[in-house]
């Protein structure tokens, strides 16, 4: 399978990266990591790229890294998945508040509602 993983720099997005790499190592899936800026997180694209590269190096796994420009990462992720024929989009999401309520961020919500490609949410 060709997997498109979106990483926007939240802790959950890094968690999703680790899980997806582990799974891909077991199944032989091809992985593309799409880096984007998430307004709800204070991490810039360079920081995110470094963190992704470190994780890939540590796990000795090869993945393509791409950068989503523009200010609608959700819609760019959906378009990329469709135009490049990905089989699945993977995202981390569903943060819990201190009180314990799960909240989906705006990007995850957009992708869930608009994607024609199957979406896996990791939390």
């Amino acid at each position: 399978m060709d997997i498109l993983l979106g990483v926007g720099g939240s802790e959950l997005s890094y968690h999703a990266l680790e899980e997806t790499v582990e799974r891909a190592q077991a199944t032989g899936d091809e992985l593309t990591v799409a880096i984007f800026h998430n307004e709800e997180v204070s991490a810039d694209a360079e920081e995110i790229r470094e963190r992704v590269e470190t994780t890939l190096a540590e796990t000795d796994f090869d993945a393509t890294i791409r950068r989503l420009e523009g200010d609608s990462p959700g819609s760019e992720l959906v378009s990329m998945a469709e135009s490049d024929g990905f089989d699945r989009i993977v995202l981390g999401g569903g943060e819990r508040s201190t009180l314990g309520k799960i909240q989906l961020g705006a990007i995850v919500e957009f992708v869930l509602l608009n994607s024609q490609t199957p979406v896996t949410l990791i939390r």
Partner: protein
Amino acid sequence: MTRDYPDEPADKFPGPPRTVTDREGREVELLAADASDHDGVLEMYLSFDPADRAQGIPPAREEAIEDWLDTILGEDTLNVVAVHEGSVVGHATLVPDRHGEHELAIFVLQPFQGAGIGTNLVETLLGLAQSEGLEKVWLTVERWNDPAVALYKKVGFETTEAESFEIEMSILL
């Protein structure tokens, strides 16, 4: 992230303890609660209808409920329970977030819903919050949760964000 609050503070709310009669004629006590009320609150959540869960709470399994209760009955939280004939039938909580503001949640057991207990619980909890000097209270609620949204509006919460699955609302005390 900065959250929006109404410009004007809310009026004064009644604090605990209070005794009210619900619309079904049942007598309900509204009492401040803390970690020492753990057993009664646990009992209520064990009999909570899973279909009435909201945004992943209360958790489903007993151990997960226990962990969750440790948080919401923990230090610096404020809690009010609704007690009918010795059993907890409703519970509202305020839990501090990372910014010193407080997040609210409320649950009423299914057979006791729609009788005004939820409204009284939230008002009493906000009364307790006022007497403790809290100023900023917020919550999120699923867009389709009509009873909850109606209750929060009635009590004086204003919508601050309505663009996602969850509506965010806040009140200034």
